[in-house]
Structures are given as C-alpha cells and as structure tokens.
C-alpha cells in the first residue's frame, strides 16, 4: 500500500497542505480577502470570485455549497469568511459548515468593521491568530486511500488523448487500486464518448443519470440554436489537430483511467473518500471545473495540457502534465512532468507510474510549478438560465 506524508484533520481525510483560507462570499468582499491573504503571509490563501451579492436562489445554493466545500477541503486547517454585509449568500451558513468539519473559523463583516482598511487589518489579525493554532501541525504518514485526486484537461491537442491523458488515467487506476478516489468532470466533454462511460457505470440508475446529464448539456447547445463547433473543440484545440467534440471527448475521458464508474455528483458536491472513480457534472471550463472538484474535497489535481496551460488553484496543488514535446520545452517552467516520451516509445504504464509517484510526492509537500509561481486561479460556476429553469422544475 502506498502512502504520503500529510496533515491529520480533526474530521475527514488528511490534507496535503496546511492553509488558512480567506473566503469572500461575493465579488464585493473579494478585494478585501485578497488583501488579507497578501498581507498575512504564505500559508494564508484567498479564493476571490465574481459572484454577485444577490444571485437567484438555486445559484446562491451552489455558491454556498462551493464555498463551504472549499472551507472544508482537507488542505484547509482554518478559515476566515468575508462578507460586505449586503449579500444574500449567507456567510454564517458557510462558516457553520466549516465549523461542523471541526475547523476554527471567523466571519468578517466589512460594513460592521468600518470599511475596507479596518477589515483588512482585522482580517490579517484573524488569519494570523488562526494560523498560529495550526502552524505546529506536522506531516505524518497517511494511507494513499485518503487521497481524492481531481483530474482535468485544458488546452488539449492530439497529444492529450495519446499521451498525457492515458498516463494520468494510469495514475488514477493505481490510486483506485490503492483504495483512493479519482474524479474527472466537464460533462460537455463526454459527448461522443458517453457510451464508453455508460458501459462502465456500476449500476443501471447511474448509467441513466449519466446519459441524462450528457443529453442535457448537448441539448442546451441545441436549444440555443447554436452548435458546439467553434466552442467545442475550441479554436486552439482545432489548431492542435482536434476536429470534432467526439474526438476531443474520446481523448479526454481516458484521463480517468479504466476502472468502473462508481458515482456521479453535482458541481462542488462532496466526493466520497475511498470512492473509486467518481464523475462530477460540471461545465467545460477548466478553472470552474477544477474549483468544483477542490470544493468536492480533492486535495491534489493533475491537469493535462497539450498546447500549454499555466493555471493553478489556491487550495489544491495542481500538477501540470504534458504529452506534447514542444510544450514540454517551451513551457518547461510551468510543467511538472513530461510524458511526451510516450510518443517515443515509453509505455503508458511507465509514464503513468511516474505521474503516480509525483502525485504522492506532491501530496507529501513537493511544490508544483503553479505553486512556486503563486498561480491560484479561482472561479465558481455560475448557473445559466436554462440550468436554473431545470433546477426549479425538479425542485
């Protein structure tokens, strides 16, 4: 059985990082959250986003679910929740969810504190106080089965389906074999490959639910009277040799490996520990998709890219994997592992084992390229009108 050196949490699986999260509930509190993290130091990370102060009810629920998930991610040891004070998104509900996971949490209300400067001041003090309580925590040996591994692809090209995704898929298979959880998402990128995933679903009800979700994403494009071409594959994907969504999807789903599909959860919903391969229903936008899985509990993310992406995440380390030899060279400083060697004859098993070894090293504290450069993109999926309508119908 494989293991990693992680941080015990009072509840839930071990963390691979030990952060104080500063979580704004709306765009109106994001600048203050950023300023707090900036001033409080390296172990304090903010999650700024663009969500408004009064979203429709279903959208608000998704925002609260996402922020609560971020605050209870195993990599977060304590949190400060920041609100302006006009939001319908409930800072107390987010803080309660974090407290329920046995983390210390404080709520900062900008209007009550007397404005931005006073709030930043108070926030820095709170973050430092919270940090002092968890700073002494040391890494101890943890079973790999505690890991929830989020996998993502972005800036895909033909090498994604040939090299980087199969290598990451092999790492997912290894983790699932060791008792952990692997998750991938972006339902619109199942289109054309859903029959393969459906055949691997553990139950008939799961199979039906998966096909319904794919159908919904596909019909959304049809309803709007547009096709997916132009957006899927994107112009960049097309330049990289991907002609159709089917081709992109067939290459994309291999990043989840070959084990049975054991579940499908909503955006930012909790991913099970020791759950095998579990899919998350998200849109096909990398940053939001990564954030959804981190909110679901993923401690580590692998991000495959053919054409080159530099993106990271404030809470979970993001391992950049490329199968494109030109990208491996041009973007060497943003990549963590080069599996373009597969094109020259390295087996997928061997390259995938290297990814799995790196996953355990990163889980044990090794910094990724995105972490070293403090690349910490964060965005929450905003429900679209057709999704809101569907949620209202099914409520």
């Amino acid at each position, binding site marked *: 059985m494989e293991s990693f050196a992680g941080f015990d949490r009072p509840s839930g699986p071990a963390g691979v990082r030990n952060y104080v999260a500063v979580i704004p509930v709306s765009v109106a509190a994001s600048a203050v959250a950023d300023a707090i993290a900036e001033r409080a130091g390296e172990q304090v990370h903010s999650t700024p986003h663009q969500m408004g102060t009064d979203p429709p009810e279903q959208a608000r629920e998704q925002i609260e679910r996402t922020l609560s998930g971020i605050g209870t991610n195993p990599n977060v040891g304590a949190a400060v929740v920041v609100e302006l004070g006009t939001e319908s998104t409930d800072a107390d509900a987010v803080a309660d969810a974090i407290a329920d996971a046995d983390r210390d949490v404080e709520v900062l209300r900008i209007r009550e504190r007397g404005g931005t400067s006073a709030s930043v001041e108070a926030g820095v003090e709170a973050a430092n106080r919270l940090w002092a309580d968890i700073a002494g925590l040391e890494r101890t040996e943890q079973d790999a089965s505690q890991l929830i591994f989020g996998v993502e692809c972005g800036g895909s*090209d*033909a*090498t994604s*389906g*040939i*090299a980087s995704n*199969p290598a990451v898929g092999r790492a997912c298979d290894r983790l699932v074999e060791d008792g952990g959880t692997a998750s991938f998402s972006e339902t*619109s990128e199942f*289109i*054309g*490959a859903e029959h*393969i995933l459906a055949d691997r679903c553990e139950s008939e009800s799961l199979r039906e639910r998966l096909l319904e979700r794919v159908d919904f994403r*596909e019909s959304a*494009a*049809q*309803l*709007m*009277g*547009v*096709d*997916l*071409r132009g957006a*899927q594959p994107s112009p960049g994907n*097309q330049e*990289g*040799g991907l*002609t*159709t*969504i*089917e*081709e992109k999807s*067939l*290459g994309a789903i291999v990043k989840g490996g070959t084990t049975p599909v054991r579940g499908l959860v909503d955006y930012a919903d909790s991913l099970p520990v020791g759950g095998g391969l579990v899919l998350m229903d998200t849109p096909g936008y990398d940053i939001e998709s990564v954030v959804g899985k981190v909110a679901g509990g993923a401690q580590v993310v692998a991000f495959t890219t*053919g054409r080159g992406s530099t993106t990271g995440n404030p809470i979970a380390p993001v391992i950049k994997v490329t199968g*494109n030899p*030109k990208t491996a060279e041009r973007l060497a400083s943003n990549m963590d592992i080069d599996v373009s060697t*597969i*094109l020259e*004859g390295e*087996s*997928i098993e061997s390259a995938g084992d290297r990814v799995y070894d790196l996953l355990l090293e990163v889980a044990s504290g090794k910094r990724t390229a995105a972490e070293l450069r403090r690349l910490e993109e964060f965005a929450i999926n905003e429900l679209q009108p057709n999704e809101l309508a569907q949620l209202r119908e099914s409520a």
Partner: protein
Amino acid sequence: MKGEVLGGVGLQMSRHDNVVTAIDDVEAGAVIPYDGGEVGVEEAVPFGHKIALVELAPGDEVHKYGEVIGRATERIEPGQWVHTHNCRSTRGRGDIADGEEEVA
C-alpha cells in the same frame, strides 16, 4: 503508446481506424505503409493532425480510437489531411433542424 505508428509517420490508434495521427510535422510525399500497400501523403500535415488511410465519400464515418469521431463532408482521398474543412461532428448540432440530419 496505444496503437501502432505506421512507417514512422502516423499513429493508428485502433486497427479499425481509417485515419492516422501525424506524430511529427509531415511533408507531402511521405509514405505510410497500410494494408499491404502504401498511402502517399498528398499535402503537408501538421503534428497531431489526421491523414486519411482510405478513400472516404461524403457522409462516411471517420474512425479514430476505434470509435466514430465525425463524418466526411466531402470526398477525401487516401493521403489527404482530415480536419474541420472536410470532417464534421454529428453531435450538439443545434444549427441542424430535427430530421434534416441524423443527430445520433
């Protein structure tokens, strides 16, 4: 790597595929051994892009990964570049009215 590189030029991911993926930039005139014969590459094809192994008529399925990735929209000769100019998705086509073309 899954599949087989034919003649050091293109990767055939499944034996049933009728296209290969260029594993480097390919010049016109390159030769791909296929099905006991040879396919001459007719035009320069960039790294990662696809080359037809067989003749495809408009509407014929294009296969990669042993799966359907789209249909030919015009006649494609063996050795020609296969991409958005001559191959289209059959999915997510909101631009096509119901019944006009199969949306399977």
